[in-house]
């Protein structure tokens, strides 16, 4: 079967014919191609274990094991192609879907994810991530911003200001992401912009993940006095990740301008039209 793909003047994204997952991103005018597999996973929230009775909760992220579970091994896909937008609708499960969008003239891929209500009928709290896996040799480093300003270099299992004895291989490598996270091998850079603050990390070379939603069943004994559970059947959340692929030297200009446009996005107000004049006479 022909490869499922979407394309504009600058970018082409292809999708795996069997799984329906994103497979490659290509920057056409820079002849830059990067295999990028993106999918959703979930960490099983810890309720305390032999090492520590600390549970995952509103204050604490603590998965019960290092390896997250895939939400699904494949996605049902639906392609929409028009002159004004090309998009692939992906359905990973009843509570996890995404639209991968490309508008004319834009240099980023828009991933609009919709997650929830997170099922907890199995009595397991879940912490949902969107993970991007690439072959980039990032040597244990990644970059996250601080309130959209200074970008800090992060190194796995390391702290610049003290000798870290890493006891939490996942949570101990998670950092706040207010607007962007990126990985680079010095030549190619993959940047993901967020539309809200999220937790993020790079737990393996070439990999980058962002936490999009959580639903937990036990209080973390830090003062809230109730689990992060939401009322009734739980909420579903929709957000967007903007994905940029660029050469390392050109990437900053791209993500800085786009992040500004994302933060100060245009506002739309509707009206029937034809109202009376505001000014006298």
């Amino acid at each position, binding site marked *: 079967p022909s490869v499922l793909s979407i394309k504009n003047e600058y970018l082409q994204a292809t999708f795996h014919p069997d799984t329906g997952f994103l497979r490659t991103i290509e920057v056409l005018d820079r002849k830059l191609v990067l295999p990028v597999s993106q999918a959703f996973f979930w960490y099983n929230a810890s309720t305390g274990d032999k090492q520590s009775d600390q549970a995952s909760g*509103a*204050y604490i992220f603590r998965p019960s094991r290092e390896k997250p579970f895939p939400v699904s091994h494949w996605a049902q896909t*639906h392609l*929409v192609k*028009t*002159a*004004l*937008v090309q998009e692939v*609708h992906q*359905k990973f499960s009843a509570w996890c*879907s995404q*639209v991968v969008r490309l*508008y*004319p*003239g834009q240099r980023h891929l828009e991933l609009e994810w*919709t997650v929830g209500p997170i099922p907890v009928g199995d009595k397991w709290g879940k912490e949902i991530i969107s993970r991007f896996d690439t072959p980039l040799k990032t040597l244990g480093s990644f970059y996250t911003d601080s309130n959209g300003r200074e970008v800090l270099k992060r190194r796995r299992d390391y702290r610049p200001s003290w000798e870290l004895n890493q006891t939490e291989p996942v949570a101990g490598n998670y950092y706040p992401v207010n607007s962007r996270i990126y990985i680079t091998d010095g030549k190619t850079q993959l940047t993901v912009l967020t539309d809200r603050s999220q937790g993020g990390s790079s737990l393996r070379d070439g990999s980058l993940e962002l936490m999009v939603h959580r639903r937990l069943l036990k209080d973390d004994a*830090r*003062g*809230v*006095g*109730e689990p*992060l*559970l*939401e*009322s009734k059947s739980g909420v579903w959340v*929709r957000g967007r990740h903007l994905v940029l692929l660029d050469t390392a030297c050109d990437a900053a200009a791209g993500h800085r301008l786009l992040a*500004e*446009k994302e933060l*100060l*996005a*245009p*506002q*739309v*107000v*509707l*009206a*029937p*039209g*034809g*109202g*009376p*004049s*505001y*000014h006298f006479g």
Partner: protein
Amino acid sequence: YGDSAHLNEAMAVLQHHDAVSGTSKQHVADDYARQLAAGWGPCEVLLSNALAKLSGSKESFSFCHFLNISVCPLSQTSAHFQVTIYNPLGRKVDWMVRLPVSEGLFLVKDPSNKTVLSKVVELPSSDNPELLFPASVPALGFSIYSVTQVPVWRPQARPPKPWPQKFG
């Protein structure tokens, strides 16, 4: 009269770390949301007054809070409406407008009354088709686009009677 004092107050209360990081009990988080929503109302009046003054015509402006789930009563029910797009950035931006609409075709005109390419896209994950059109908005300014539904001629069983020709 609109005012932003309520929203200012709500934003001030929400500087608490519980509001910023979501470490409050559920009912407190719900109350934070309630305070924000209560602050929005008077602000929308303020914005409507500003837009009326700046655009020169009084309108009953409609702020669609649920565009992210393709819900907007005005664009889904009106055959004609205007779309004001405000750009808070200090530079011009091009932006794709997406609005849920009812079926059919639409004619979109830009501020200089030129027709703009538009598309109604059926989406597999939503009951509502969406009208898309590219907008260009000046720095720290706004553009007003007009949208008019075009009656779609459906082929009848019998071709319509020819209009009586008026010979001039």
